[in-house]
């Protein structure tokens, strides 16, 4: 697969503070790539270096074959950008912003009215920016990021501060961007967002990339533990559970058993054991690790700090 962004050995400091260091990764054509980490980990700095808004102290960056620092205007013509916590003029109307943005690009912009309709903003086209809700503002920023039909779209903390419903709507929009064949580079500190949206993620902490892969592979690699919780009053159950291959621990409190082990086969093995021994259960559920657990494992603390 062709890579559209190459970042190699990037370092950026603000005075004494090292914001990012030795950051290297590639983003492939047509994927949603997520840079995930807690606030202050260096996500925005990394993204703004790639967009050409900041100059790294060291390292090389190439986007669509262009150097973001030397060819910033050429690059900005081909990318779409949504910045974290950005604002527009308080009393600019939605359609005025779209119209202004459409006039700024060299190549022909896509139809603004159609874009507003797709993003569900048609009935807000005459509203002032200051009177939009948080979700509507983000929808407008997505519209502005898409107006030049960009090849790569950058989204920085897109859903921060939104309610769950708006968040889901925005996720659908982002998936729609990928379906149009665009590459999406996003940052988030929400693990659920990364898991649901991203094809690949890079975990960043204290300005350094810890690991990069597909979310499910990261989970497999760093958190192979599986847990089954079930309830049964069968007296022979505990003994049988301990005999299951791959089981590391069986904890019993009252009639509730917590079975811990490793590997994808654990759940199958437990079900197999239940059916073979005709053990009657009144409750059964599995606990699978997710990116949140991966992050905890890799950094020793929760992402919410």
């Amino acid at each position, binding site marked *: 697969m062709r890579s559209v962004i190459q970042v190699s050995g990037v370092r950026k400091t603000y005075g004494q503070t090292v914001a990012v260091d030795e950051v290297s990764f590639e983003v492939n054509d047509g994927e949603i790539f997520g840079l995930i980490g807690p606030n202050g980990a260096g996500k925005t700095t990394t993204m703004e270096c790639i*967009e050409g*808004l900041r100059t790294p102290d060291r390292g090389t960056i190439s986007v669509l074959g262009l150097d973001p620092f030397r060819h910033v*205007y050429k690059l*900005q*013509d081909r990318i779409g*950008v949504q*910045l974290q*916590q*950005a*604002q*527009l*003029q*308080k*009393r*600019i109307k939605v359609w*005025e912003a779209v*119209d*202004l*943005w459409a*006039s*700024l*690009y*060299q190549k022909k912009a896509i139809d603004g009215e159609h874009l507003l309709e797709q993003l569900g903003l048609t009935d807000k086209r005459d509203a*002032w920016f200051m009177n939009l809700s948080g979700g509507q503002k983000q929808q407008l920023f997505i519209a502005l990021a898409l107006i030049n039909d960009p090849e790569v779209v950058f989204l920085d903390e897109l859903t921060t501060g939104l309610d769950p419903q708006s968040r889901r709507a925005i996720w659908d929009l982002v998936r729609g961007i990928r379906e149009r064949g665009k590459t999406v580079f996003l940052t988030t500190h929400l693990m659920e967002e990364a898991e649901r949206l991203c094809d690949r993620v890079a975990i960043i902490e204290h300005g350094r990339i810890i690991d990069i892969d597909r979310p499910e592979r990261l989970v497999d690699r760093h958190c192979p533990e599986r847990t089954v919780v079930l309830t049964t009053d069968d007296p022979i159950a505990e003994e049988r559970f301990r005999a299951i291959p791959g089981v590391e621990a069986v904890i019993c409190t009252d009639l509730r058993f917590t079975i811990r082990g490793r590997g994808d086969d654990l759940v199958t093995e437990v079900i197999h054991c239940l059916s073979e021994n005709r053990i009657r259960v009144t409750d059964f559920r599995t606990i699978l690790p997710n990116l949140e657990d991966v992050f905890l494992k890799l950094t020793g603390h929760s992402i919410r700090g």
Partner: protein
Amino acid sequence: MMLRGLWKLTWIEIKVFLREPLGAFGSIVVPVLAFLVAGRIVGGRVGPPSLAASSFIRVGLPVLASLLIAISAVLSLVTIISIYREGGILKRLRATPLRPQTILTAHVIVKLILTAATLALMVLAGKRYYPVGVHAPLFSFTIALLISTWSILSIGFLIASIVPTARFAQPIGAIILYPMISVSGLFVPVESLPPVLHAVARVLPLTYAVHLLQGIWNGDAWSAHLSDVAALTVAFVVCTALSAKVFRWE
């Protein structure tokens, strides 16, 4: 291209400004009203005018009012730039193919248009209620005021470059700009100022603006004021170069 988006951005900034509840009123109506009221009070009180008083009403007051228009435009620019910076609007605009200088030029154009519009309104109102300066060369005076405003705007940019937050923009701008009027030669001739103030007045662009505006209002030819225009241009170049060095976009 440098001009891409300039007119559209300028037009949007004008509309956005006029939508401000106090925007048009504060910047256009208040100076005009103040001018009329001041003219009435001073003009009414002085019976058979002494020479000095009459000269101040004839020349000083219109020039003072024009300067206040220019300074209020500059203060408004300083405030807007600081608010835009604090709100991330400047940064958002910069993450497009818009050139930074295009963004700032649009704001300068808006303020020059605002200044010209206020001046026009003042003259129209003045003709009706305050029969002074009817015979002044209005076109030349407008050009002189725009040159002065343009130069003072560059001081505004320098102030906007260094004020820490939007909250301080207006007061800091006012503290820097208004006292400049007192030594500008408008009330007391520059030559009769104490040596220190005289030296200060010599380096302040407002002094040259006042000299230019008074002269043009009195009907002087432009050729008599080339040094004033030159001084204002130098001030513009110096302040623009300095703010290009220290300007912060976020």
